[in-house]
């Protein structure tokens, strides 16, 4: 695929702050209409990467394109929406007045930005608070308004830093639904989050950054991986020995369930044959899946903190 076919395309991107290498040669591709999760510990280079993609920082070397345009170019910036982490919206504004200002800076005509602002405030549950100054907003309301400003100009790519931060569970669900609707409309969404469960729920692809390098990238199932462990429950008395020809069986910690670790990923048939051969009856067989959190923590453990 060329850079044009990818919405975001990053090649060997480096960013040095003096002796500090915030990014040490990152390459990434993000496909259109997908949700891409960027994970990593604090200081891993996530924010630096996002700021380069938004054209706020100039890379030391390497290239980055958004929709085939070099990042930082006016056209690239026109196509992106951004919700920064810990954003501080100017408190003297009301929701509509803030969206009006940002819409103007984005180049939207007055009528268009008014219409779009009303639509988004309604969609995000902020309608009817037109006269309330932002200093009177709750954290969740500020987060929704932050999301509204990112969506204001109908960008093709959204960069969201902790989009559901401070939002209650109902609100989070609303935001997730909204993002999925945007994805369905063809919008590519780049999410930077520490809520791994949420990333797993939302994202099609994830990349884990570590010390300025991409440690892992792929679809969520690819990253999480198909583990060759199963939970097994027997109808009769449990087996006496733990070492089987097809794998190893150990108590799982849950009553009457055993964790089976197969020697090969396709060894489940051999295990079933072996169980039948031993005259054991199964009442439970369930494949265990890894979670993003496990993978993330494994990566974090290997080599300690990345900052």
């Amino acid at each position: 695929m060329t850079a044009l076919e990818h919405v975001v395309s990053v090649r060997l991107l480096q960013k040095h702050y003096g002796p500090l290498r915030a990014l040490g040669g990152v390459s990434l591709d993000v496909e259109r209409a997908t949700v891409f999760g960027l994970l990593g510990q604090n200081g891993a280079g996530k924010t630096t990467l996002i700021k380069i993609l938004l054209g706020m920082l100039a890379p030391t070397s390497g290239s980055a394109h958004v929709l085939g345009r070099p990042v930082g170019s006016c056209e690239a910036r026109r196509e992106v929406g951004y919700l920064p982490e810990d954003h501080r919206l100017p408190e003297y504004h009301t929701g509509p007045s803030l969206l009006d200002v940002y819409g103007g800076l984005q180049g939207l005509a007055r009528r268009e930005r008014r219409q779009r602002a009303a639509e988004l405030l309604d969609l995000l549950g902020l309608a009817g608070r037109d006269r309330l100054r932002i200093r009177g907003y709750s954290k969740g309301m500020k987060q929704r308004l932050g999301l509204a400003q990112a969506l204001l100009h109908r960008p093709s790519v959204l960069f969201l830093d902790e989009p559901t931060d401070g939002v209650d569970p109902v609100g989070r669900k609303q935001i997730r639904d909204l993002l999925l609707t945007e994805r369905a409309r063809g919008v590519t969404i780049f999410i930077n989050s520490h809520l791994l469960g949420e990333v797993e729920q939302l994202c099609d692809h994830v990349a884990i950054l570590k010390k300025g390098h991409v440690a892992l990238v792929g679809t969520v199932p690819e990253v999480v991986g198909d583990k060759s462990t199963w939970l097994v429950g027997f109808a009769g008395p449990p087996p006496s020995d733990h070492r089987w020809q097809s794998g190893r069986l150990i108590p799982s910690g849950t009553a009457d369930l055993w964790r089976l670790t197969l020697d090969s990923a396709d060894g489940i048939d051999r295990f079933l044959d072996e169980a039948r051969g031993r005259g054991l009856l199964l009442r439970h067989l369930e494949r265990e899946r890894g979670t993003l959190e496990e993978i993330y923590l494994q990566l974090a453990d290997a080599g300690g903190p990345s900052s």
Partner: protein
Amino acid sequence: MNEPTDSRMRESSCRPGPLRSFAAILSDAWLAFRDARILWLLLAAIVVLFAVALSARVEPHTGGRRYLDLAARALSADMTGIDLSKDSLADVAGRLDGSLSMITVAAPVPDTAADGPGTTWNATLSRNVVPVVGSLATADEIASRFGRIPDGRLWTVREIRETTTGLAAAVGNQTWELTVDPGPDLRILWPHRFTLFGDSLELTRPEGAPLGLEVFILQKLLSNGIGGTILLLVSVVVTAAFVPTMIRKGTVELLLVRPLPRWQLIAFTYVAAWLFVAALLGLLILATWLATGLLTAIWSPGIILALPSLLLFFALMLSVSVFTGVVTRSAVAAMLVTVAYWAVLFVVGLMHMQVVASRIREETAGRPRPVSVADALRPRPQSTRSEQTAAPRTPFHTTTVAHVVEAIYAVLPHSEDLDTMVDRQLMRDFAVGGRLRQLMESPDFTWARGMGFTLAHTAAFLVAACVIFSRRDP
């Protein structure tokens, strides 16, 4: 990253357009401006200041005879082209025509008319020519010169009839019957009482002060003096927060992501803030003009000059504030640095004024100090204390301190020049004379230098702020 030229060309058409960006920043800055409570508090203070000013009463004293006498005495010298702010009485002495004139009889027309600045008078003028030195005057000469004093024209002669007898003429004694109307400058030179809160607080001496001087002081208090200073100070405080609030972490990202050049964020915010303050200053000047006009019926437009002076000065203060805001990202630092800079300008300006005054004192040493009509009105003989006690010590302008002050002043924006130019114009308009006027008229002060230096410093601070902001990583 180096991108092909065509991408740069496309960029220009993709930007939101400076007008739309400016409108957005203007709207943002307006809300920030409106949000500042201190602004409304001090606008209220200025309204109170005006209410107090409008409670004033300005009433003319009687004085027709005195002003007729003054005009008669002034006939002794040809005062054409004399400016007492620059020329001293010594210069007038050189123009004496060898005669002495006085009013012998004077009565208002009609007899019942009040003695005020609008009254017409019938008078008898007597002129004695010093033998050999002087010569007889014609009625036309008297008609054209009567009432002309260096500060303006007190009277205009409507009718003149010579009543000199042949014998009297032979010994150099001429008489005329005159009917004189108030001249264009009589009213502003006429002594008036000035009281506040109706009649309860009298601010003038018992003999009153020339109306022009009162208007001058009033306009200075309301506009380029106290009122303007309060407004500028509040504006500095309010606008100091604009840039630091805009470029603080968490807010600046929301702006940097928009497709407009970074320098526009700073430059447009600067212009927006300046425009609001310009509107307030415009209102202040207009209100001052209206207030003094309503009180005194003097609608002289000189005070309008205070507007460019104050606007330029605020442009400079705002550029310092924006520059400090960009560098430090702190509203408090921006405010303190700006006020400190202002204080430095003020002190250096004041000391520079002392240097100029000292130089003028030396140049005019031994000559009588300039006299204004206000001085002439005082019943006591004017003090010559400063001349008498002037010990033969080193004049200030030749001291090391003065040289240092002059060196600093030379590189600072000459905002003092702007203020002085406004005062000079107001003093001319309102015939305010005396030593202060002499200082104000000094050629050391010019509009060109005041504007040029102030604008150059303003541009330097603003460009530096834009460049630093554009190049710095957020």
